């Protein structure tokens, strides 16, 4: 990177807030996915106006820009695929306003998801989207990826909880859309921008809805001898119109790995469990618990346990939320997939995953949001073994293809990013891409903002600015 640009940014942000040495940058070439790409500079702005000035400088010098929250994303959304400047929002981590009366919070993008809940729980409120990484991921990142989590089954994903945004457009202009009101007039720009994976604008402030905590909560652990019985149970719960707040499935092999790691109290000798949470009025919770137990028993559940207190409940959830970490101990690397299927097809989809596991010879763990059909098969492999890596990628693509074939979608909550950009053609036609490109062109005409994401290379925009041969492109050059 041109030293004049480095010193200009240093004088704008202070030298501490500009990283340019290779050893510092290496930390930022990863996120939670298997891809990697190194930025040439990482900057830490503290204000919207600094973000705007960084963007203007980048545009002037034709340098790609990518925003980054905590880097916990699982699709490569926050990787500098086009090289250039990474804007890390870690210092923009202030909660600007808590309007408890109207149940709104105004936050900077670097605020950690769970910190917002902690700031309002004294008033019986919380921020509903709860990705497994909620203790480290940022709300800015959640907005970019339209993140979900176990409880989105009942409460919706990030887009259902955002009413306003402050944006820095790819030319450096600062603008606002929406506000605290739920329905701003005009085109639903928040609806378009939440989940646009940082390809249309940078988000510098978020107005989020706060939700009211339920009066009662009950956590059930249903234990099954086979995966089939567990998936049939989920399909039946959905068909009987019982809507738990969360309904997670973990297979037996995964449970053993979790038990070795956190001792959450899961059985070590079963085929699968369902971790089901019900929330609402005491009476509704009691009714639903009876209904769920009936369905579980009808599908040969060995046992349905109810968490006796908050400790037991938290331990079960800790087991669920640290599952990926637990599996991380079993192989040098793993590949977490994210695909969605109609809930009525859960049993057949899991059977297909098991077949693919046999075909590829790699271990595939299953821990996922069963209640909304959001699969997360996790393929374990050793990246040093090229053949294993290729098998893992192949198995993953086979699973995703199958999910789309039976009426599903490529990604339920992790985003397309660079991981799935080439698979987009499974779902979208030339005409769909043409419209996406025109929208992209209107917002991000230079293509400098987060290049190489969402669009398949070759179907992108101007040409998604993956400028092969460009000197500042360590990835594709």
């Amino acid at each position: 990177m041109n030293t004049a640009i480095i010193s200009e940014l240093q004088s704008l942000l202070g030298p501490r807030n500009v990283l340019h040495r290779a050893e510092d940058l290496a930390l930022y070439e990863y996120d939670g996915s298997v891809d990697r790409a190194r930025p040439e500079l990482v900057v830490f702005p503290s204000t919207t106006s600094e973000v705007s000035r960084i963007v203007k400088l980048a545009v002037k010098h034709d340098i790609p820009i990518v925003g980054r929250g905590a880097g916990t994303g699982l699709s490569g959304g926050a990787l500098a695929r086009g090289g250039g400047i990474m804007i890390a929002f870690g210092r923009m981590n202030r909660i600007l306003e808590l309007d408890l009366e109207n149940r709104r919070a105004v936050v900077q993008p670097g605020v950690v998801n769970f910190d917002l809940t902690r700031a309002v729980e004294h008033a019986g409120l919380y921020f509903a989207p709860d990705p497994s990484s909620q203790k480290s991921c940022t709300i800015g990142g959640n907005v970019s990826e339209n993140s979900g989590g176990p409880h989105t089954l009942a409460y919706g994903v990030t887009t259902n909880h955002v009413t306003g945004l402050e944006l820095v457009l790819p030319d450096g202009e600062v603008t606002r859309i929406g506000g605290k009101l739920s329905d701003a007039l005009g085109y639903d720009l928040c609806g378009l921008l939440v989940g646009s994976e940082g390809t249309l604008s940078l988000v510098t402030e978020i107005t989020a809805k706060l939700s009211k905590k339920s009066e009662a909560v009950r956590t059930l652990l249903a234990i099954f001898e086979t995966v089939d019985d567990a998936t049939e149970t989920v399909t039946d719960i959905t068909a009987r119109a019982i809507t738990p707040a969360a309904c997670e499935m973990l297979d037996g092999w995964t449970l053993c790995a979790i038990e070795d790691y956190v001792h959450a109290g899961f059985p070590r000798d079963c085929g699968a469990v369902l971790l089901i949470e019900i929330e609402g009025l005491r009476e509704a919770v009691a009714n639903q618990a009876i209904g769920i137990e009936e369905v579980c028993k009808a599908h040969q559940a060995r046992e349905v346990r109810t968490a006796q207190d908050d400790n037991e409940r938290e331990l079960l959830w800790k087991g669920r939320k640290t599952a990926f970490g637990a599996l991380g101990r079993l192989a040098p690397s793993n590949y977490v997939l994210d695909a969605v299927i109609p809930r009525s097809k859960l049993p057949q989809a899991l059977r297909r995953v098991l077949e693919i596991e046999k075909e590829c010879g790699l271990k595939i763990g299953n821990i996922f949001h069963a209640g909304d059909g959001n699969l997360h098969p996790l393929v374990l492999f050793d990246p040093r073994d090229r053949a294993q890596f290729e098998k893992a990628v192949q198995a993953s693509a086979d699973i995703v293809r199958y999910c789309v074939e039976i009426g599903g979608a490529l990604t339920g909550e992790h985003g397309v990013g660079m991981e799935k950009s080439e698979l987009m053609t499974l779902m979208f036609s030339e005409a769909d891409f043409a419209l996406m490109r025109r929208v992209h062109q209107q917002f991000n005409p230079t293509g400098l903002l987060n290049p190489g994401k969402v669009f398949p290379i070759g179907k992108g925009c101007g040409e998604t600015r993956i400028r092969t041969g460009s000197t500042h492109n360590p990835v594709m050059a």
Partner: protein
Amino acid sequence: MTATIASRFEPVVGDANVRTEPSLRSEFGVDEVVPAVVARPENAEQAAEIVKIALEEKLAVIPCGVRTSIGMGMPPSRYDVALDMTRVRGIEHYDPGDLTISVNAGTPLKELATILAEKNQFLPLAVPFFENATVGGTIASGLDSPLRHFYGTARDFVLGAEFVDGTGALAKSGGRVVKNVTGYDFHKLLNGTLGSLAVITRINFRTFPLHPVRRGFLASFADETGAVAFVKELSATPLTPALVEVLSPEFSRLFLAEKSPVASLRLGLQAWTVCVGFEGSSEVCERYGRDLSRLARSTRTQDAITVLDARFLSLLEILREAPALMSGAAAQSVVFRFATLPARLPDLLRALRSFAVSSWTPSAALIRSGSIVYLALLPREVDESTLKQIAYFWKSAGSLRAQFEFSASILFCPTKWKSELDVWAHVSGSMDLQRRVKKAFDPSGIFAPGRFVGGS
């Protein structure tokens, strides 16, 4: 011109589906602007062909269903082709076990409701003109439902859409599954855009289970302050009702009969009435009844009752149709919609009522979900001062924006008054990004020009 255009469309949809009779064309008029041709495609591909031809011939197109809400927005600046989507109908895919359904745009809402009810499911789109409206028209009009209090608006349960964009291409976004972040969420953009972005051909919805018991709770208050305070207290309880509406006495007198349960309360049709709808098992509904009665006793409630079954459902119909009823209540009525934050509702309501009084025009109001005010001005007779008074009201309402955040638009208004009453006068926010979206979807500006916010 009519004959030339018609001859281009006939090979696409057949002679019988290209209509040019003046009487029929005027039925398809939008704010008294009459199209040259009415084209009736039978599927999405034909709709796309019509749009392609319109593009070549530089014709302005307004897609429509049965046109129950076609008077919304500003008058079109150009309008050549009415694209009647009512033949593009039927259920494309229904997976009751997944609680998802994919429906063609011309399908009547009522037909959809019947199909869902057979599987004990429903869509929380209890919108005005329910008996006639189509699915596509409902999404394009963006009219809301009392059930938004619990279920949100269409934006929260539309999973995907297929549509014809302004280049004549058949495009889509989202999918049929309940959780999906693949690609840009264009289907969210289609809500309430009055046909200005695309021709909706199909919508995928998440459906919801019908609850075994649905009941209402009515409480009467001597004044608006008491009613609004009750709603605020209710929001602090653990209860999560399906709907919470407040009826002004004028609203009740106009639209509720003497035999309505509201009339049986103390103060009856003279009162401000809070209507809370709730659903669930019988145990859950009994809990609601108990808690609401207790809340009523601790507030300034005059009287309260629980309403069951058919009596509740018929009240729900009135609430559902409220904006349409208001629009039909006087020869020249104007229906306004204001949305604000719950904490500002009392101030907004007080100010609006005082402006209404100052405009010397009778009014009626309904408050939805503690934050939305539907207010109708209902002039008894119209003379040269009527429009001035209504314009005064609209301007005064707009001046409140200096004090607090709210959005406002005119839902229904006589066409001839729209030259003085800009229905979008009080829209805030950057028009620049709105224009960019319009340009991407409809680069040549052929869809519903002039009707939507910012003239797009």
